[in-house]
């Protein structure tokens, strides 16, 4: 890996030359998309797609039979348990570690420190991204230079969790403690304590300046924003917004189990979103060939981006090699809050230049992102603050985005559902609402005058650089999202409460996301036919609880004309499934699903060929349906089961029918959402109650509407939390002040308002059967819509998340 500044290609986040002001033609993104045959089926012609097929693992899940990583414990009688010694100082250098007592304890099998031979000493990033990673290699598995309260220093494997915990308690660490900094504004000062020397980081990222604790700076512009702002016929508005450090709070903690199997393979059974990236990163850290590592994913108890990282896997692997036995590491819930990952807290400034009659001439966003002690996902998340929400207003001629990503001595941040878009959407959608109010414009019509529509050439998505980030909009249901959302929330018939001190208001916000990373994704699938006419679908795509495996089955069943029950899916085991970049960037159905579709079409071609021989009919007359291949000419049919037997037993030219598909694309079509929030505010106390959340989402064709609605509602719940909960607060030493669910404000069933999800169907020609993504876009919208609703109800603006009664009361008093 070179030390040259990385010029990363992914996730919309890199600096580049400002794009030309001349409109481009985007010949590589034509409006008339060369869509695969039979991709656009009318609803009545779909047999599996857009039907509520039962989730394939649901019966296991509801009966407690599904196996998550920790449930593998039963299978290893000699399993050891790991525990970790973590830094108690926010910044310093470990000068001595006393491990003698731990090593002599009964039941302790291995103790590792940064100086142990068995501890990997290579630099790496925990971010599970494509290669080369667009994140700096700035950390070690066990760190001598510690940068936050929680940095791993030493690790123990022992016969059970209690013994491992006792051993960890007996280990004493001496530090040389350094000054520390927890505030990102202060960290950016040249006199601030410096977290990294330049030579402590490999794979440095564009715009790094470690003298100022800056991990990266990115900037992109189209048109000329400064010139537009200087015009004398525009109003210039500026607002600033602050977001929380949100926990993923997935209920299954980070859990990973490592062992060496009978074929000498290093096996990780692990709760991950990124098996292939994890395998590659482990190979780098341990200097083991990629081929000798196997990463397999059982059921995963939620990820939300927190497992789009190699957070814990190196520890059990190192310990299992040192102890020569299987080792499992399960983070504690306390560790989840202070030592795993969280959403990047940010300050985002929004500025616009708008004419008297409401033309937006320029949008300018700037983000200061606190990446915490390490830089994982720092640059790419910050890039998405601009590149996801700003393209909503693709008709605005001048746009600029800049971000500084700085280190502080606070817990590590990382990928989280929405991936920067929630921070940017709050700023942009809150800001535009305020501008509309200032200019006395209808907030929806003001947006409608500028937002995307089919046929638009979206240059804003590409202004941050990145292969293929520029795009053509070929599906857009924004109008329908807005209209159906308005109707569902009762936009035009809002009734005020009888009490004078209570005021009701509805706020709205729009959102766009991407579907996969333009130009930087890969999914692959194989389909093999069994002689009984059933199929084994092997797919690299990763189901982390979203239902992706079921969507894969539905896509394959639609192509093959068979029942969903006749397809067995096996996903995400690097020994047995093809390559996949992993479950992130809303790519799974779109990228891996398209690979499945191609694999099914490949297999179908062979099936029709066999049926052609068996029916003595040309293949072009044949079609699959209901487990049969039939002739449209003669009506003759042969079952898939007959073809299965015939292909492997019955003919001289025997073959095993196999289909393969692999998919990558320059496209990343945006899904869209329109959010509506109905709130009642008490003008005397500032207390407020959210009466209802309505969110309408254009996700193209929903492969499984029931599952898609679930994704929308769950995402909206997470977005609601971002608006009203404090997240992970840190003390003056940067230590997370939250250690359990009682302290972390994950809204419970009684604390969550009713959520109405509306699926707006469009057809995205680049996606499998018209699908684009669904799971992230509703994560972005509640903070701005709630801020806008409170502004509507009582006339005050809350710019800083979380929105609390105290803040509203203070603002009301200032009014």
């Amino acid at each position, binding site marked *: 890996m070179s030390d040259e500044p990385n010029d990363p290609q992914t996730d919309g986040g890199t600096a580049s030359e400002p794009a030309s002001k001349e409109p481009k033609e985007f010949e590589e993104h034509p409006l008339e998309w060369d869509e695969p045959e039979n991709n656009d089926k009318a609803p009545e012609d779909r047999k599996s797609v857009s*039907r*509520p*097929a*039962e989730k*394939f*693992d*649901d*019966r*296991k*899940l*509801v*009966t*407690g039979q*599904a*196996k*998550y990583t*920790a*449930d593998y414990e039963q299978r290893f009688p000699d399993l050891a348990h790991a525990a970790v010694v973590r830094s108690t100082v926010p910044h310093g250098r470990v000068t001595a570690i006393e491990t003698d007592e731990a090593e002599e304890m009964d039941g302790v099998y291995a103790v590792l420190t940064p100086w142990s031979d068995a501890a990997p000493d290579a630099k790496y990033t925990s971010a599970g991204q494509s290669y080369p990673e667009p994140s700096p290699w700035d950390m070690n598995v066990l760190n001598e230079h510690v940068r936050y309260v929680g940095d791993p220093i030493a690790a123990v494997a022992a016969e059970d969790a*209690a013994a491992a915990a006792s051993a960890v308690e007996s280990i004493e660490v001496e530090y040389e403690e350094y000054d520390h900094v927890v505030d990102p504004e202060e960290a950016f000062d040249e006199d601030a304590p410096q977290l990294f020397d330049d030579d402590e980081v490999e794979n440095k990222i564009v715009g790094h300046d470690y003298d100022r604790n800056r991990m990266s700076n990115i900037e992109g512009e189209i048109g000329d924003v400064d010139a537009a702002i200087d015009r004398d016929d525009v109003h210039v508005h500026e607002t600033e917004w602050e977001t929380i450090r949100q926990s*993923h*709070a*997935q*209920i*299954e903690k980070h859990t990973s189990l490592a062992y060496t199997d009978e074929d000498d393979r290093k096996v990780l059974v692990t709760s991950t979103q990124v098996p292939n990236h994890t395998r590659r990163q482990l190979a780098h850290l341990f200097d083991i060939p990629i081929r000798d590592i196997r990463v397999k994913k*059982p*059921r995963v*108890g*939620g990820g939300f981006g927190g497992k789009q990282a190699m957070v814990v896997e190196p520890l059990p692997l190192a310990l299992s090699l040192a102890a020569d036995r299987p080792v499992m590491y399960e983070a504690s*819930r*306390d560790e989840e809050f202070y030592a795993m990952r969280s959403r990047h807290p940010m300050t985002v400034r929004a500025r616009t230049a708008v004419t008297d009659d409401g033309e937006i001439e320029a949008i300018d966003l700037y983000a200061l992102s606190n990446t915490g002690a390490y830089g994982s996902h720092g640059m790419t998340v910050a890039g998405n603050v601009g590149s996801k929400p700003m393209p909503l207003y693709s008709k605005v001629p001048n746009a600029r985005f800049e971000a500084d990503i700085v280190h502080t001595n606070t817990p590590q941040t990382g990928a989280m559902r929405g991936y920067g878009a929630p921070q940017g959407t709050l700023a942009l959608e809150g800001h535009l609402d305020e501008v509309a109010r200032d200019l006395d414009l209808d907030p929806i019509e003001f947006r409608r005058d500028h937002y995307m529509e089919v046929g638009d050439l979206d240059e804003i998505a590409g202004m941050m650089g990145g292969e293929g980030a520029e795009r053509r909009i070929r599906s857009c249901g924004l109008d329908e999202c807005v209209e159906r959302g308005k109707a569902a929330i009762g936009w035009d018939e809002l009734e005020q409460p009888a009490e004078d001190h209570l005021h009701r208001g509805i706020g709205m916000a729009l959102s766009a996301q991407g579907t996969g990373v333009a130009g930087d994704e890969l999914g692959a699938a194989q389909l093999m036919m069994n002689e009984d006419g059933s199929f084994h679908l092997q797919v690299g795509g990763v189901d*982390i*609880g*979203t*239902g992706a495996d079921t969507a894969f*089955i539905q896509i394959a069943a639609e192509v093959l004309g068979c*029942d*969903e*029950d006749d*397809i*067995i*899916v*096996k996903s995400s085991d690097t020994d047995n499934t093809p390559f996949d970049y992993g479950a992130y960037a809303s790519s799974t159905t779109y990228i891996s699903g398209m690979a499945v579709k191609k694999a099914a079409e490949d297999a179908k071609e062979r099936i029709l060929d066999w049926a052609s021989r068996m029916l003595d009919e040309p293949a072009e007359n044949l079609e699959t349906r209901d487990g049969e291949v039939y002739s449209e000419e003669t009506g003759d049919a042969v079952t898939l089961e007959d073809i299965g037997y015939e292909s492997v037993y019955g003919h001289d030219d025997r073959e095993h029918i196999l289909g393969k598909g692999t998919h990558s694309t320059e496209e990343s079509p945006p899904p869209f959402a329109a959010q509506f929030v109905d709130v009642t505010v008490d003008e005397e106390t500032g207390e407020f109650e959210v009466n209802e959340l309505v969110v309408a989402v254009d996700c193209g064709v929903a492969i*499984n*509407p*029931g599952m898609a*609605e*679930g994704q929308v*509602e*769950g995402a*909206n*719940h997470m977005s609601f939390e971002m608006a009203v909960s404090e997240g992970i607060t840190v003390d003056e030493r940067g230590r997370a002040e939250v250690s*359990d*669910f009682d302290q972390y404000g*994950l809204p*419970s*069933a*009684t604390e969550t308002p009713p*959520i*109405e*999800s509306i699926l707006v169907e469009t057809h995205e020609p680049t996606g499998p059967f018209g699908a684009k993504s669904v799971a992230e876009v509703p994560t972005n919208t509640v903070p701005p819509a709630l801020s806008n609703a409170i502004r509507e109800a009582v006339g005050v603006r809350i710019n800083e998340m979380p929105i609390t009664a105290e803040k509203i009361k203070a603002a009301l008093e200032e009014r």
Partner: protein
Amino acid sequence: MEIQLTINDEPTTVEVESDEDLATVLRRNGYTGVKCGCDGGACGASKVFVDDEVKMACGVDARSAEGAEIETIENLGTQDDLHPIQEAFVDHFAVQCGFCIPGMIIAAKSLLADNPDPTEAEVREAIDDNLCRCTGYQKPVEAILDAADRMRGERSVAADGGSRIEPDQTDCTAHGGDPDE
């Protein structure tokens, strides 16, 4: 030490270390439908019945359960013969990652035993300490209300009125994809 428990109607002797919680003991004995999400009685994933009372097993000292009758998710229904609550969760797409779901179903069973015709507010109250990160609770609440209808013998319509499940789509059996291999 050894203690006697009746687990899912089977009298059993189990080994218990001092300070061990009931969730750990149940999981070690194969009842891995009992999940641990929080290290201590805050997420609801480890809910079981102890002598007909719902407890978070991770918050129960195992030795204190000596002689108790324990019922776990494994006792409710099988994949081929789901309990009506389980069936409703499947039909309503109320399950995403599924990690919190066994605990939530136990809570629902307890609620419906005491209150066969709950309001939505009562359902939300009953699962208030079952934290879920995936669903936003909307579909689990709908599922539990529908399960109440089913258990009272009234045929159900999806609670939101918008996505009625056609019978031919509710009858399909589980696919055989074993996550173990």
